[in-house]
């Protein structure tokens, strides 16, 4: 399988990465090189094989359903590019 220019633009939008028109041919070439490389997986017989979900067989640990963290709003917003009080600031989303 390979991707065309329209697909490159669609993927870029899905990935939320702005891509200019003159970058598209280059990206298309790179993505197709990667897709050509992974193409060889189609020759593997995976009939009846379970997809891997956990590389080490283990039971997921569960913790007590109690609050054990919090009250750190200052920390949470400490690195944000724009804040007001304990809120993140973004461009207007709802008109």
């Amino acid at each position, binding site marked *: 399988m390979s991707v065309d220019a329209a697909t490159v633009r669609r993927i870029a939008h899905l990935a939320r*990465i702005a891509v200019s028109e003159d970058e598209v041919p280059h990206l298309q070439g790179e993505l197709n090189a990667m897709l050509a*490389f992974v193409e060889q997986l189609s020759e593997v017989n995976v009939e009846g094989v379970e997809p891997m979900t956990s590389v080490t067989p283990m039971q997921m640990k569960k913790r007590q359903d109690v609050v054990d963290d919090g009250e750190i709003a200052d920390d949470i917003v400490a*690195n944000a590019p724009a804040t007001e009080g304990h809120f993140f600031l973004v461009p207007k989303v709802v008109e």
Partner: protein
Amino acid sequence: MTDLTSLTLAEARKGLAAKTFTSLELTDAHLSAIEAARVLNAFVMETPDQARDMAKAVDEKIARGEGGPLAGIPLGIKDLFATKGVRTTACSKILGNFVPTYESTVTSQLWRDGAVMLGKLNNDEFAMGSANETSCFGPVGNPWRREGSNTTLVPGGSSGGSASAVAALLCMGATATDTGGSIRQPAAFTATVGIKPTYGRCSRWGIVAFASSLDQAGPIARSVRDAAMLLRSMAGHDPKDTTSVDIPVPDYEAAIGKSVKGMKIGIPREYRLDGMPAEIEKLWSEGAAWLKAAGAELVEVSLPHTKYALPAYYIVAPAEASSNLARYDGVRYGLREQGKNIIELYENTRAEGFGAEVRRRVMIGTYVLSAGYYDAYYLRAQKVRTLIKKDFEDCFAKGVDAILTPATPSAAFGIGEKGGADPVEMYLNDIFTVTVNMAGLPGIAVPAGKDAQGLPLGLQLIGRPFDEETLFSLGEVIEQAAGRFTPARWW
């Protein structure tokens, strides 16, 4: 006094305990070495004041007889580990001036045991790369050069800063991470020892995530014993990482010097590649002969799905990365580029903040997870991954204790020499290491010799799940036979 930077960690521990020198002296010696080696670009942030404060505090503890297992040992920390109050960027522009308000579990355990932080080490952006060329801080120089040449070579990646700093004697050991070979390949390129432990051995909490089902932390060190000492402090269960395993951490150092007599060592025939340099072949046979001389038994084994590990990796890892890196949105931390609306803000921030390799991987990951392609790519790759793991299980079920392979298909290469036209050329660096991540197994790279141009080459040992001890025992046999390698100083 001998040059304190030339000691191994084990030797430094003795000197500190015997009060031959203090941690402050040891730390100062390394800080001076770092200053004199800035041309290598191994450190992206030096923290001398903090290092001296930590060293003074630990000297007082040592005086009171309260020093931990790493008391007073100065280390470098890969910039992928969150360090409280110290800028952590994953060497990406998108994290900007991110200063964590918390400490990663692995580094907090090193400080608990008395280690001293010298600074943060360069790496490929978000650990995506095999040459440390994708860092937003620029490439790292390998302290090793070809004989008679002034060309600066790459130290490998993604833990290139860690490997370069340890090889150049700038720190006594370093933290690193390994998603497809990022500890073992740079270790092999710099004649250092690097171990990627079993998936689940070290907590991933506070480490910038790349591909969560593959990422593992581990040390890069000057000797096998040093690596064992570091891993003991780094490993252990952490309730904050549900994939970290709740089993005791053995005293890895006790495995050093243990007899390997009667151990069965698998030599996988699929790792004998067409066109593999004769020097690598020779090194591999030599390594096998050393283990045999130490009493181990060599058996040929087959891992039939080996050739599919790298392509499967280049579906699984980018898919997980595209999901993990969705958090860099210009809202909560790091870089922000303005846009007319919030979608444009996201798109502009991510276009400006991610480098070319990261953008490529996020896009391929987005594609293989997108509607209509998930089954053909992602699901199939995860099935292939099951088969890769089964290859190893079959092998271990036949009584094989560990598997010996070359660590890399070549020695270090020049900056800008690979991957310019076709990204896959660079990816092939990880052909011998990536299988281990796909199967979640432990793997160690140990320096084993040099090529005709005088560049170091390494061998890899792959172990059973959670049996890092056998790797330390076997690794030390190779180290004893091959000797240790130090680069001639040119910086």
